[in-house]
């Protein structure tokens, strides 16, 4: 899970989930605590889906 996807692609990560911003990849301080948790829940859920998905090459899980 990372904000700058091109770096993760360069270093060779195979399952990549793009995140929000460099100083807060899994949060957004401009939202309420609950809204922030929703975002985080969604991103971590996507990471789990990525882990459950067979891939044959570097894959970015945009959704």
């Amino acid at each position, binding site marked *: 899970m990372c904000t700058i996807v091109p770096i993760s692609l360069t270093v060779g*990560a195979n399952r990549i989930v793009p995140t929000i911003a460099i*100083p807060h*990849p899994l949060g957004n301080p401009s939202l309420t605590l609950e809204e922030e948790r929703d975002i985080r829940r969604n991103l971590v859920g996507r990471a789990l889906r990525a882990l459950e998905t067979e891939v044959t090459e570097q894959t970015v899980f945009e959704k």
Partner: protein
Amino acid sequence: MLKVVHYINQFFANVGGEEMAHIPAELREGNVGPGLAFQQAFGDEAQIVATIVCGDSYFNENMEEAQKTIINMVKELQPDLFIAGPAFNAGRYGVACGTIAKAVKDQLNIPVLIGMYKENPGADMFKTSLYVVSTKNSAAGMRDAVKKMAPLALKLAKGEKIGASSEEGYMPNGIRKNFFDTERGSKRAVKMLLNKLVDKEFETEFPMPDFDRVAPNPAVKDITKAKIALVTSGGIVPKGNPDHIESSSASKYGKYDIDGVMDLTEATYETAHGGYDPVYANLDPDRVLPVDILREFEKQGKIGSLHRYFYTTVGNGTAVKSAKAFAAKFAQELKADGVDAVILTST
């Protein structure tokens, strides 16, 4: 006189550190920061007419918009050369330098030159499409960088023929240059072999490509039964950073017990990372290491369990060699502990 436009980040423009990394691109007249050394090296052959200053976070988080704005600035100025950096080992700065230089080259057909350390992620991304001068890993290498970049910059601006990477100081870009060596091949080969036999340095004439790729692991069969571990390069550590993990160029990683920890809070955890504004991660470390959500998922049966330990280091100018060594070590522990999958978060 040749016209040069220089691109630098907020740090080298003396605007500020990470707390100012969000500033959008702005145009300044003449040279700024490291531009002075370039201007001196150019003498009266070229002049830095303008400097574009942009925050590293802003550029990387708003790539399309930042590129559009900067391209318009450069277009207006019509320089003979666009130079960016040097970025040394600053990852986001290196990526920004490469991205904008490539856009200037491709869209405006203006010669470009950038410089950075060989392990900067921007180096691998751009060394085959741009001239990337190899610099030292920190700003202490500025003089050396300018000494290598300035002459190559002038050659590019004048449209002169560019020699081999070993002569000009740019990173090998995969394009061969023919030349006559003073010694014939057999002699060079034997010399190399003799050096190799006594563990002396030698430089191969046929380097192997450096593809750091691993085959993807198979998918986790049933995530609801899986033991998931958290690993981060975002520097999250228990409050007070008990193992003193360095804020940059980390020489170690930490392993911390989160048995019973349901939520990372300002009072209990923080970030040791010195390469991004730490305010948001310190207020709520779950923003980097999502322990709260994984606990929730664990409770709801969406995952089997969250592994008892998380592993952490600071991915800020940290040598690739160190990072590989850390992972080689703790991956064995993760395997021995029966971890099925790892979520690695980075900033």
